[in-house]
Each structure stands twice: as structure tokens, then as C-alpha cells.
């Protein structure tokens, strides 16, 4: 669309605030019609668009420390303007939007080769090994704005793109073409009781996320905030999900560093 600045939606998660309660995971599953099974113990075949992992510093009692780290899709921009999954998809089922910076996944287009799952360094993509089976009556509670997936396709976090679509509809009706920050927020952001997740447009200086992260356009969006880091920064995937932590060991855990290497910020 003309006369509009391209958006770059991103997320910053404050790990000092995250208590690991898992509300974001639950909100995500309910919002996005994510299928589940009676027995979800096998994490190789269960689907969680938003997943909270636990990190430990590996030290014994007095110094021991843990940290919870929620992991949605990173919506990588990469070096060439798109994510690793986009370049490997042979079906054009996944694509990188330059309007919003969101990596899309079109389920009806996907034929389940799972190249994207192999390409994703964050394991953010999941395969549907079965058709979804909802408990009796639950299909009436599914979100009508998100299409349920079928067996044999890959799915992942979409930054609740349907909420963007709905917000744009409202804007159109009111004769606007731009959204306010609070009009488009993801389900996990709103569900987080600790307020650890902030979502917004990284290109928009008025948005909270821009102010917190302060991305450096000269270094592919690397955060200028010394507390902020991204997962596997040195892979060059240029993710749009940032993390905040005041703890050095947590920031180091975001990438694979050799013992003698420095802080890992790489500034």
C-alpha cells in the first residue's frame, strides 16, 4: 500500500519478570486452535506455538539459578530479508511479508515435507501427525478467525496475525489505514500476568518495544539496550523476538559461546 511505512512487528520478553507460569502457552493454544492430545508427555509430537523452556546456570546449591524463557516463532528477517524456513519451502507455503515483517504459514498450501522444521534453528515449527480431535463440544469454542489445521501440515506462531486482520478491518471501517499500538496485540502478550511480554512495531519510535529494545539498523536490528539479547544472534537469522535479562549467564545462554569468549553481546 502506498504512503505507508512498512511495519516490523516484534516482541520483547523480560526474563526477569517471567515466572514461568505458562499462561502465554495456554492463551496461545486457546487463541490459535492448537490441537492437543490426551497424553502430551511426548514433546516430539506435541504442538506448542509458544513454549516456555527452563534454563539453569548448572551450578550447585548456593549459586544455583534458574530462568524461564518463552519461545514463540522468531519471525526472522535474516540477512536477505527473510527467514531460513522461507528459503527452503518448496511449496510457497511460508513467506516473509515486508509489510508487517511476519512470517506466514498457509496450511492449505503446505504439503508437509518439513524442510522448514529442519531449517528452523529455534524449533518453532511443529508438524501435525494427526488430524485434530477436540473433546466433545469443544469445536463450538474454537476461534473462528483461525483455521484449524489438518494432518500432514506444519504450523507455527503467526504473531496472532488474525488479530491484525481484524484490527485493520475496524480501521478501514473508521476510515483509517494505520493501527494504534494497543489495537494489535498478541494473545500471549495480553495473557502474561507479569507483563513480561511487550509487542509492537519495531520501526515505530512511538511504540514501547522500540523504546525498550532500541534496535540498531546498522547491525541488522541488534539491540542497543545492553540488557537485551536475541537467541542465536551469531547465526545471522535476525530474529524479531528480543529478550531482556539483567543476568549475565542468561544472556550468554542465548547463544553458544566458547568458555574463553566474552560477554557475547558482540558490541
Amino acid at each position: 500500500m502506498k504512503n505507508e511505512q512498512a511495519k516490523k512487528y516484534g516482541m520483547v520478553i523480560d526474563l526477569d519478570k517471567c515466572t514461568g507460569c505458562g499462561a502465554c502457552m495456554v492463551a496461545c493454544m486457546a487463541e490459535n486452535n492448537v490441537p492437543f492430545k490426551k497424553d502430551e508427555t511426548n514433546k516430539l509430537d506435541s504442538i506448542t506455538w509458544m513454549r516456555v523452556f527452563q534454563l539453569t546456570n548448572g551450578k550447585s546449591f548456593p549459586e544455583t539459578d534458574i530462568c524461564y524463557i518463552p519461545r514463540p516463532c522468531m519471525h526472522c528477517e535474516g540477512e536477505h530479508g527473510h527467514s531460513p524456513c522461507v528459503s527452503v519451502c518448496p511449496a510457497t507455503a511460508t513467506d516473509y511479508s515486508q509489510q508487517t515483517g511476519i512470517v506466514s504459514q498457509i496450511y492449505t498450501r503446505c504439503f508437509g515435507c518439513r524442510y522448514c522444521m529442519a531449517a528452523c534453528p529455534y524449533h518453532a515449527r511443529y508438524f501435525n501427525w494427526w488430524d485434530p480431535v477436540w473433546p466433545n463440544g469443544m469445536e463450538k469454542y474454537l476461534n473462528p478467525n483461525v483455521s484449524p489445521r489438518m494432518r500432514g501440515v506444519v504450523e507455527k506462531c503467526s504473531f496472532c496475525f488474525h488479530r491484525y486482520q481484524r484490527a485493520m478491518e475496524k480501521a478501514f471501517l473508521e476510515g483509517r489505514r494505520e493501527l494504534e499500538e494497543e489495537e494489535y496485540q498478541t494473545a500471549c502478550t495480553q495473557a502474561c500476568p507479569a507483563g513480561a511480554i511487550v509487542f509492537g512495531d519495531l520501526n515505530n519510535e512511538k511504540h514501547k518495544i522500540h523504546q525498550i529494545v532500541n534496535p540498531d539498523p546498522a547491525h541488522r536490528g541488534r539491540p542497543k539496550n545492553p540488557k537485551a539479547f536475541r537467541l542465536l544472534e551469531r547465526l545471522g537469522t535476525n530474529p524479531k523476538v528480543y529478550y531482556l535479562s539483567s543476568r549475565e549467564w542468561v544472556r550468554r545462554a542465548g547463544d553458544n559461546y566458547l568458555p574463553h569468549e566474552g560477554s557475547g553481546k558482540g558490541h
Partner: protein
Amino acid sequence: MSTNDDKAKEKAVAETENHPGHSEDKKGKGSGGSILLFFLVGIIASLLVGWVVFPKLLYSQKKQPINFNHAFHVETVDEGCASCHFFREDGSFSGVPKLAQCTGCHEEAQGEDPEEIKFVTQYVEKGREVPWLVCSRQPNCVFFSHAAHVELAKMECVTCHGPIGESTHSKIYEENRITGVSRDIWGRNIAGIKRNSWDRMKMEDCAECHAEAAAKEVSELEGPMEGFFNNAVKIAFPKSLSGRKTSVQTQNEACFVCHK
């Protein structure tokens, strides 16, 4: 097919029996004719199966619960289609009206029409929603924004929905037995030929109109020289800003604009 083949053979046999002497004289020519006949019958039979029998098998036919007279209602209301099919405050489109909209006028039967009496006694009095069958309902994976098309692009309802406002009877709802999608999406013509913009509602039909609109926009904005230059830039440097690229693979906002 096999029965038709048999018929063709029988016909050929019958011909040879009727003119035994004749066929012996022109043996080569007679067999050539029967082969031709064999193919003709085969083609006609295949076309009949494909165009007549197959659609009958593929689509189930259902009647609407109430035979609705659009033409009569459009005459009565003030704001045309939007009187009943309106936008909600949150930008979503209401689509088929709920019972609450109908009861505004139809608390009691207003005339002698048996369809209206049926509507009032079976639905209004019992407070049941009418299980309308929606001919234009897209499959699950489609996100269609009425606001973007009607409010922003100022399109007419007729462009996609056709002159449904002029109809006096509800048409038969035909449902694809395999996909569960209404026949109006594929179109009445099984071969996929369309004459009007509202004949089909497939992805190609959306794309066709959007491609036309994009071409028009470019030609309106740019003079011939400027347009030529920009086109050259687009071809030479597809990643440049003037290339109007909106996504990496499809250049169409990553398909998420119409899919959900």
C-alpha cells in the same frame, strides 16, 4: 463407458447384418466408419458423464429453511443491502441476519404468505435461529474483509454476489459432497467458464480483480515515460523500493492477507 462401447459395437454389427453384400465389398471403409463411430459415441458419453452425471453426483441439493423473497424486502427497506447485511462496530461484517433483526418487523405475521407464517410460527415464536444455508461461505482457510472491499474500495455488493437482491425465491443450495463447500464458490458452470464477475468466487477470481486494480493504479499514478522507467527499474532491480514488493516469495503480502 463399457455399456456405451457395447452399444456402439452392436450398432456396427447391426449395420453389417443389414447390408451383408455391401460390407464385403467395402470391408476396409466399413471398419474405418465403425471406429469413427466408436470414438464419437465414446466422446459424447464421456462429455455427458463429465458435464451432467458428475455434477449431480458431486453436489447434494438442499432447500433453504424459508423461501426468502429478496426483491420484496429490498423494496420495503430504506438502505438497500446494508439494512439487513451491515457492519458491526468492530469492523466485522454481520453477513446473514440473525433472528433479532427479522423480529423488528416480523414479531407477528404481516401477511398471508405461507412462507412468512412458517417463519413466524416455527422460528420467531419459538425463538429459534433460522439455519440459513450460506451460498457464498468461503472455506475455513479464507479471510475475506468486507470492510476493505466495501468501505475502502467502495465496491458494490453485486460485483461478487450478483443480482441476488432481485431474486424472488431462494435458490437451491448445492453443497460439494467432498469438500462441504457451496457450489457458488466453484461456479454453476462445471467447466469453470464465467461470464459475469459474480459467477465464481474462487481464489483466481479474487486474483483477477486484484491484478486489474494493481495495473490500473500504476497506470493512473505514472505517466508513460515514468511508468516505462519504473518498469525497467523493477525488472533490473527487483529488490529495489520501486519494485512494490510486499513479500519475499509471492509479492502478495505473504498470502496472509487473504488466508488465516
